[in-house]
């Protein structure tokens, strides 16, 4: 056996695996989008198993609140770009593969060019906008997407858009969820997530990637796996063989004007701004930084704060609902200066 294969002896020994399977892994080019709770464990195992070209796309920096589940990062790295830190560590873990950091936010402008460099995408993102963007881009590019998502104790895994022997493609995210109002679904910053579930689901995604590349086992294509970390019961939902959706264009990425915690502090100390809290009453009662309180649902009816000529800063728990609020208000008042607080109260409490 070649010396460089010694590392992989215990997987080459698997039934159905061979040195040729290891060669397939070495030749594969996999893009992990999002180096967060799912992306960290997935990338660790893909690197360990010898995926030859592993891209990590993330525009964000490490924050303290990430550390309970994003196991590639340490407190010393808070403030550094996740994609760079992840690639550096994974390169040390496996010097025999190529790691490619992409410090960028994937958008409708850049995603198709990025996909050209890869055979397969792993969805480690944490928001619906990017999940739909990745899904639609993979459908347009004809490439499989290994999807994962988590919330509290519930996880989902599937492999979307796999070409079948008859030329059709397996179902994709829009077959299951045609569209979502994301302000109605809390994210992990709001509802919490158990770190070990992120680990399980990320490993399951990496597992599907390895199965796809080496043509081993039964893929979760045309299926959706549901995992409940409270009971460890799981079930596989059959989705049908082929997609019934037709996707012909990407959803356009909307830019939401944001201000960072530091920028807001400076603004408050100088010309000031109108603060608007769009969280619910219970969240407001627990902790707030002043200003008006207008829950997101009531926003367009109770927008009296728009009368001020100061800039408006909208905040919520994580920046998600405030981003949605800014989008809605900007549609009605495109000339108004309205911002969302980046990272919401979570970032505020970490940084102030």
């Amino acid at each position, binding site marked *: 056996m070649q010396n460089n294969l010694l590392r992989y002896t215990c997987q080459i020994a698997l039934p159905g695996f061979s040195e040729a399977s290891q060669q397939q892994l070495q030749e594969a080019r996999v893009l992990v989008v*999002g180096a967060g709770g799912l992306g960290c464990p997935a990338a660790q195992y893909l690197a360990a198993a010898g995926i030859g070209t592993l891209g990590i796309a993330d525009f964000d920096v490490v924050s303290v609140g990430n550390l309970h589940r994003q196991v590639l990062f340490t407190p010393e790295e808070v403030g550094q770009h996740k994609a760079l830190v992840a690639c550096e560590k994974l390169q040390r873990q496996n010097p025999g593969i190529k790691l490619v950091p992409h410090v960028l936010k994937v958008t409708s402008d850049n995603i198709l060019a990025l996909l050209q460099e890869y055979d397969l995408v792993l969805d480690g993102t944490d928001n619906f906008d990017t999940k739909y963007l990745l899904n639609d881009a993979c459908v347009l590019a004809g490439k499989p997407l290994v999807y*994962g998502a988590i919330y509290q104790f519930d996880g989902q895994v599937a492999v979307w858009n796999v070409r079948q022997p008859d030329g059709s493609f397996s179902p994709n995210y829009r077959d299951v969820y*045609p569209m979502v*109002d*994301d302000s109605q679904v809390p994210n*992990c910053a709001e509802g919490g997530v158990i770190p070990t579930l992120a680990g399980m689901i990320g490993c399951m995604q990496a597992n599907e990637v390895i199965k796809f590349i080496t043509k081993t086992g039964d893929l979760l294509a045309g299926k959706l796996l549901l995992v409940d970390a409270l009971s460890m019961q799981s079930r596989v939902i059959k989705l049908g063989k082929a997609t019934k959706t037709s996707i012909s264009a990407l959803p356009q990425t909307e830019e939401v004007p944001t201000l960072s915690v530091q920028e807001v502090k400076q603004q408050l100390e100088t010309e000031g701004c109108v603060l608007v809290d769009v969280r619910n009453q219970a969240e407001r009662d627990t902790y707030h930084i002043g200003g008006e309180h207008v829950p997101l649902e009531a926003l367009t009816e109770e927008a009296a704060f728009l009368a001020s000529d100061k800039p408006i800063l909208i905040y919520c728990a994580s920046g998600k609902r405030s981003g949605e609020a800014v989008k809605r208000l900007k549609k009605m008042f495109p000339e108004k200066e309205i911002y969302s607080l980046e990272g919401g109260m979570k970032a505020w409490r970490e940084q102030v």
Partner: protein
Amino acid sequence: MNINVLAFGIAKDIFGASAIEVELPEAGTVTDLRSKLEEKYPRLKQLASYMIAVNDAYAADGDALQQQDEVAIIPPVSGG
């Protein structure tokens, strides 16, 4: 007929329980179930979409339901 409906993810919060019973006319369909649920739980409709699975398979709106079916409401999840 009474249909037993299991809740996943945020549907547990919306129903306030991990399973509920829903009364439907005989030969009711998935669409009938959706209407009934959305009437009682308006937040479900606000999600814009959620999957209904019957006996561990995706159910289309016109599909007929039967008393002994195991029905699951599986809302979207976005965390990562």
